[in-house]
Structures are given as structure tokens and as C-alpha cells.
């Protein structure tokens, strides 16, 4: 287990919590420390409790734990919300001078550092910098070199002018000095720095970066939590490569625009969350039956309906696997870490074009908003390979025309994948339709043609099953008869839970599955195990159902659906409890 420190800043939405947390996270990352962040936020612009939490260590960290060592509390509620995680020796930095803070109570066993954040900030040039004063105070309490914070402040405020940067540095310094001078206390924490290089990013950003690396040149979307960051990331960056982002009037429009762009030959993507997927589902069928390559990102949040927009859940799997009327060939790819969000996005584009199908890329809120450090080599742009599939140019067009010289966009080939022309290709003009169609793309209700086209579309999935590597990520004791199966962002927490379990001499094998459809065959793994536990953030066990269906074996379930991601220590207990249950569930 890494020697880690858990840090948080909390207050009301609008207090600058998020940017302050990010500044500190970047400072830690730049100092060669690993960082894993999490956010408690409410669906409102101002007011209400919000917090940004950082877990940091010299070794990689991949989950959150129930412990808080340093807390910057801008409100009393911040202390109350985190009381369970605070412990003897936890340091709480607060501002006793603020009138609204007069009642802020710090439990005796904790170290309360009453720092005049506001007045020190005013000394440095403005009350708005009180959070930065608090960061300086936190640096002192953790023996963290404030120079690392300076770099982060330069990055953050550099665009606003030198004096703003200097004022912020001064604010941090005043906070640090105040703690050093006023509190005669020997702090327990020592944030050592290293020479390692890391980048710090979240899942939404990794998806956006993956899209750019994959050659995505068109993005259309409608703002929705927690997927909006994908659009915000691409806006302003996609143009560097000639591409464009269109903010559509709704999700119906967003997916149809992407469809148009994809048919024009661009690599096109849209991203949304569950409610948006609902709206897109009609066109999803059109995308599939017109065999248009497209990537649709679903960043899951708590449902149903508007549910809990700012909370974690993995409740959309059934919709992604089965949503839409009729039978629709599709791919569902589910990255398991922030860095996998990058790689799987690239892969999703290749699947889409190779097989001419829509690809759902599914992430969950916990992964999408979590910032995590990685060695930059994990995002190797030069290693990105682009496969555009069966694109036919002017020269090769003759091969794919019928005897009347008409291009056949839906020709039933052996592998199910048809030739494709981009508009502008001479001799390649063709139509396609959501109606059942023939090889030319024209409407038909002929029984034979219907069978041929349905079989052709489904054959693509069979081809992909054979041609691609539907592997999973594996961790822990490969010989263990205790198998834990996971998807999405739970991987990190389970990996860390495994270390807790080791302390109790429980070794498990973790299989983390990044492909929901097509997916790896887990039959042998399940058969070889005595205990099979599927861990997921939903109430009913949607992936567990799939595993049972595939392997014809009952599995145990560990589910969490209160809106909060799994924590490593809590998960260790849950897994222990599940192992203690009987092995067979009554059918």
C-alpha cells in the first residue's frame, strides 16, 4: 500500500473549490508524485456543499479511501460532511475571522489551524486569493516545497498577466509563513518529491485526446453532465487539425450531425450521458443500418430519468447492449482506467470504420471526472494506428460497381463489411436509407434481400469476434479460485482492495473487462473458480447478468448504487462478505 496522503478542500459551489484543488493536484504531479482525485459536487452553480479530494503518494494510486489527513474547510458543513473520514491528527485549515465561520468547530483530537485566509489574501492583493493562502498553509503542514505550487500557479494564471501570478505566489507564501510562525506544531506529514515526470488528466480529457489522436475531425454534442468536458476539451483543439466542433440544439441533432459528417468521410464522434443516449437511440438504429462508422460516448451518471446528474453509476449497460428497436449490430467498449480512455477511444474509431458500425464507448462519472497521474509514455501518439477499413477510391471503383455501373454500398460480402466511398469519389454516388435496402442502398421488402442484409450486418460482429483480440486485463493471483470480475472504473479500487485482502491471507484473481460487446469468453475462468464475484456500480448487476448468461453459471454480486464510487477499504470488506456467503445462489 502506498504511503499516501489524503487531502481535500471543501466549501460551497462557487467558492473556487475545483480550480483550487486542481492547482494543488498539478503541483503534486509536477513534483513527481502520483495523484488520484475525486470530487463531491452537486448539480448547482452556486451554494451547496462541494469538495475536491486528492490522494497522493510516491507510488501509483488508483482509488480513494475513507481517510482524510488535511482538510481545507471553507464552511462548517465541510467538516461535518467529512467527519467520518477525519481522524486523530487530521489537520483542518480554516478561517476563524470570517463572520460566517465563527461557529466552525474543530474536534479536539484534530489539529485546527485557524488561518486568516481572507485578510492575508487581501494583503497579497485581493480576497479572491484566500484559497491560495490556504494552499500555502497546506504546503507548510505537509512539508511540501512551495516552489512546486508556484509553477502550478504560473500555469494557471500565466495568461492573466505577471502581476496576477505574483500576487498568487505572494498569497501562498503568506499562508505558508503564517502557519510556520503561528503554530508551534510538529506535523506528521512529509510530502517528498521525486524527479519523475507525470501528466495529470481525467477520463473525459483522455477521451478527447484519444479522439484527436485517432483523427476525429468532427464532433457534435449537447452539453450534459458529466460528458461536457469532452466537448470543451475538443473545442479549440480540434481546429488545429482542421476539424470542427458543433454545439447542437439537442442530442437528436448531435447524433444526426455526426452521422452526416461520418458519411462525408470524417471520423465523427458525439458524447453524452444516459438521458442523451435515450434521445439518440432512434438515430443509433439508422447509423447501424446505414452502416455508418461513428463513435458515441456515454459517460454514465445515476439514472433513471434525470436521476443524480453529478453522481456515479454504471446503470446504462443494458441500454447500450440492447437499446433500440429491431436488432442492431454494435460494439460496446468500456475503458477501465483514465489512460485506457485514451487507448480505447482510438480503438473505437478503428472498430467503427473497419466494421462500419456505431461504437458505444462507455465511461462512468467516477472515471470521467477523476484526475489521475500517468507517465506521459502511456499516451504515445506515434504508436497510434489508424485503420480506415474498406475505403474505395476513384481508381478502384469499377470493382465494386454492378453491371450497370452502379456503386454497391451494401454489397453482401463474405466478412459482412461492404466497400465504402466518400462523397466526391467519381462513380461512387449512392444512397442509403434506414429502410431495409438492397446492395445499392435502395428500399426493398423482398424476403431474400432482407435475410441477406440482416445476415450481412450481423456477420460483421462474427468477423470482428474472430479477427480482434477481445482480451481482458488481469491482476492478482492467477491461480486463485476466487475470481472477481469488474468493468469500468472499479478496477483501481479492487486492485487496492486486493492488498487489504492479502493482509487477511485472501488472494483473489481480478479480471477487468474492457469489452462489453463483443466481449471475451469468460466461461473457462468462471468454471475454474469456486467463487465468482461481479463488482459493479448499479443495483441489479447488469454485467453479472451478462456473465451468467454467457457462462451458464450463477455468480455473486457486489453492487453499489448510492451515487458514490467504491472505496478500496470498503470493497475489501464487501468482497470478504461475499466470499463468506454460500457458493450457490438458488435459481
Amino acid at each position, binding site marked *: 500500500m502506498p504511503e499516501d496522503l489524503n487531502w481535500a478542500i471543501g466549501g460551497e459551489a462557487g467558492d473556487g473549490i475545483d480550480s483550487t484543488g486542481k492547482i494543488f493536484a498539478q503541483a503534486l504531479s509536477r513534483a513527481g508524485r502520483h495523484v488520484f482525485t475525486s470530487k463531491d459536487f452537486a448539480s448547482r452553480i452556486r451554494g451547496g456543499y462541494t469538495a475536491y479530494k486528492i490522494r497522493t503518494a510516491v507510488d501509483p494510486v488508483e482509488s480513494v479511501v475513507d481517510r482524510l489527513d488535511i482538510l481545507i474547510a471553507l464552511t462548517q458543513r465541510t467538516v461535518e460532511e467529512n467527519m467520518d473520514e477525519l481522524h486523530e491528527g487530521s489537520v483542518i485549515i480554516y478561517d476563524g475571522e470570517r463572520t460566517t465561520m465563527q461557529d466552525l468547530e474543530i474536534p479536539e483530537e484534530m489539529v485546527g489551524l485557524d488561518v486568516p485566509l481572507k485578510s492575508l489574501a487581501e494583503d497579497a492583493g485581493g480576497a479572491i486569493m484566500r484559497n491560495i493562502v490556504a494552499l500555502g498553509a497546506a504546503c507548510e503542514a505537509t512539508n511540501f516545497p512551495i516552489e512546486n505550487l508556484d509553477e502550478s500557479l504560473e500555469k494557471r494564471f500565466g495568461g492573466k498577466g505577471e502581476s496576477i501570478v505574483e500576487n498568487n505566489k505572494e498569497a501562498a507564501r503568506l499562508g505558508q509563513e503564517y502557519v510556520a510562525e503561528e503554530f508551534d506544531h510538529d506535523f506528521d506529514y512529509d510530502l517528498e518529491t521525486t524527479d519523475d515526470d507525470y501528466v495529470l488528466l481525467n477520463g473525459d480529457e483522455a477521451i478527447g485526446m484519444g479522439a484527436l489522436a485517432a483523427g476525429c475531425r468532427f464532433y457534435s454534442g449537447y452539453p450534459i453532465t458529466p460528458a461536457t468536458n469532452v466537448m470543451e476539451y475538443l473545442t479549440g483543439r480540434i481546429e488545429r487539425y482542421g476539424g470542427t466542433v458543433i454545439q*447542437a*440544439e439537442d442530442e437528436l441533432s448531435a447524433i444526426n450531425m455526426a452521422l452526416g459528417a461520418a458519411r462525408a468521410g470524417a471520423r*465523427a464522434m458525439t458524447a453524452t450521458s444516459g438521458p442523451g443516449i435515450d434521445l439518440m437511440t432512434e438515430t443509433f438504429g439508422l447509423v447501424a443500418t446505414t452502416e455508418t462508422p461513428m463513435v458515441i460516448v456515454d459517460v454514465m451518471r445515476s439514472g433513471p430519468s434525470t436521476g443524480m446528474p453529478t453522481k456515479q453509476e454504471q446503470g446504462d449497460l443494458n441500454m447500450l447492449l440492447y437499446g433500440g428497436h429491431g436488432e442492431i449490430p454494435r460494439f460496446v467498449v468500456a475503458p477501465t482506467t483514465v489512460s485506457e480512455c485514451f487507448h480505447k477511444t482510438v480503438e473505437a474509431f478503428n472498430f467503427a470504420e473497419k466494421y462500419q458500425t456505431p461504437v458505444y464507448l462507455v465511461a462512468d462519472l467516477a472515471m470521467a471526472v477523476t484526475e489521475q497521474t500517468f507517465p506521459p509514455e502511456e499516451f504515445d501518439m506515434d504508436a497510434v494506428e489508424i485503420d480506415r477499413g474498406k475505403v474505395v477510391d476513384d481508381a478502384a471503383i469499377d470493382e465494386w460497381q454492378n453491371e*450497370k455501373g452502379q456503386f454497391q454500398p451494401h454489397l453482401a460480402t463474405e466478412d459482412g463489411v461492404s466497400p465504402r466511398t466518400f462523397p466526391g469519389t467519381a462513380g461512387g454516388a449512392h444512397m442509403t436509407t434506414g429502410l431495409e435496402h438492397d446492395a445499392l442502398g435502395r428500399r426493398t421488402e423482398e424476403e431474400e434481400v432482407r435475410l441477406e442484409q440482416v445476415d450481412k450486418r450481423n456477420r460483421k460482429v462474427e468477423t470482428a469476434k474472430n479477427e480482434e483480440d477481445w482480451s481482458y486485463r488481469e491482476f492478482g493471483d492467477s491461480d486463485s479460485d476466487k475470481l472477481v470480475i469488474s468493468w469500468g472504473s472499479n478496477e483501481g479500487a479492487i486492485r487496492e482492495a486486493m492488498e487489504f485482502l492479502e493482509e487477511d491471507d485472501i488472494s483473489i484473481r481480478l479480471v477487468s473487462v474492457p469489452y462489453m460487446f463483443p466481449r471475451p469468453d469468460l466461461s473457462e475462468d468462471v468454471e475454474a473458480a469456486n467463487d465468482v464475484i461481479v463488482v459493479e456500480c448499479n443495483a441489479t448487476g447488469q454485467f453479472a447478468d451478462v456473465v451468467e448468461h454467457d457462462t451458464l453459471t450463477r455468480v455473486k454480486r457486489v453492487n453499489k448504487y448510492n451515487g458514490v464510487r467504491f472505496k478500496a477499504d470498503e470493497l475489501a470488506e464487501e468482497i470478504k462478505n461475499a466470499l463468506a456467503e454460500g457458493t450457490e445462489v438458488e435459481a
Partner: protein
Amino acid sequence: MSSDVRFTDFKSDKQPTWCPGCGDFGTMNGMMKALANTGNDPDNTFVVAGIGCSGKIGTYMHSYALHGVHGRALPVGIGVKAANPNLEVMVAGGDGDGYSIGAGHFVHAVRRNMDMTYVVMDNRIYGLTKGQFSPTSREDFETSTSPDGTHQQPVNPLALALAAGGTFIAQSFSSDAQRHAEIVQQAIEHDGFGFVNVYSPCVTFNDVDTYDYFRDSLVDLGDDEDYDPNDYDQAKEAILDRSKEYQGVIYQDEDSRSYNDRMGLTEDLSDIPEGAPEDAMDLVREFY
């Protein structure tokens, strides 16, 4: 693009299944003529169609084409045009497709002013579902779903377009072949969203808004020397005057700058060069 393209090159070998006498024949012929006259050919043309009788147009024309879902043809066209501005993009729909289920997209397509053409075949009835009232049906129009009238005002598509900031608003009559083709051609040539509402009579289910009705009531603004389509106030007056049926370019903003132009969209985005772009690692470095 070749100069010897004839409008028949835009015809497919599929025979239309529209009812004999349907206004859509004339609407489509005019579109094909306008495309040929503006120097386009089937391989650089993308036609997007909606649902209903009008939606069949992609089958009967020869070009790159997509027949989409009900009401969503415009966003598809916008995506095509953004991804490859070199293509001539024409979207065709009916009054139900464009002003009912797709009304939201219509308003936003107008205000986005993408450089494309939108032709609506307005027959004031739902034909393919066999005779229910449409958003442009008259208030007293009796149909299978409005036995004693619709009890609602018909939408004024031209006013909707004007209110949304339309830069090219026109109306034509499918039977007046020459004039209709001319108007669609002007819409294509317009730098921005060229919107043409075409009276395209349904001979089977609408016995009110007939060829005779339009022939008798149409006023061609092109014949009026005092009418200036660039004059917003005049256009507003004509559009809000529902006592007459107008034909012609009713409003055109001479200063129109298309979305493509504003956004600097000039490239064909289908092209992705091999290998990572030179500055790709900058994307990673941003996260240091």
C-alpha cells in the same frame, strides 16, 4: 465537376411511386435542373431526405444521398456540409417532416446559416400515412384526424424562418417548373442557408390546396418591380400577409456570411494523414 452535366444525370433508374399528378415530380425535376445549372454533378452532390412522400426523393435521384429518420434530415445535412464544404448539400423534406417533428431543427438550421439548400415540399397534408392534417393545414381543414377542422393555426414557415434570422427565404410552386427551378438555383447560389418552401400539391388527399387553388392565388413577387427582396421590412410585410400566396425570393440578406465562412470550414475532413501529426505530443504536454 463537368460542364456537360445534364439534369437527367441526377435521375436514378428507379421509377417514382408517387401518385400520378403528385406535385413532388415537379419539385424534384426543378431541384435536378437547379443542381445541373449550378455546375454540380452527382458525385459532388449530397441529398438528404426526411420521411414521408418527400423523403423518397433520394431514391429517385442519383447522387450521394441519405434517407434518414423523421424530422432529422437537416442536422444530417449540416454534418455533411461541415465535414466537406466542397460538396453541394441539398436537404429535402415535407411540411410534416420540416415543421412538425423537425421544427426545432428547422429553426436552428436557419440561424446557423450553413451554406446549403433546404427544399420543403409543402402539400399541407400527411400523404404517406393517408390523409391526416399537417402543421400547414388550414384551421378548418377536415381530415381523418380532424373531422371538424384542426382547431389550430397553421404554422407560417416563412415567418418562422424570418424570425430565426433567415438569410434566404423563398417560395415556389412545383407546377411552375421554370420559375421553381430558377428559385432553387438562387437558393443554391446563396452564401448561407437557402430555404425554399415549395407548394407541391397532393392530388389524392388534399382537395383544398390544389393546383387550381395555387394557380389562381399565387402572386409572383418577381413580377413586382417595386418589390426588393433585400428590403427586410417589405419582406416582413409579405411574409406576414397570409391573405395571399407568394412566389419568388421573398427575402435575401445580401450581407449573409455562411457558417462555413465564419468558422473557416474549407477543408474536406475525410482526409487523415498517415502517422501522428507533428505537434501531437503537445496534446500530452498540456497535462504536465
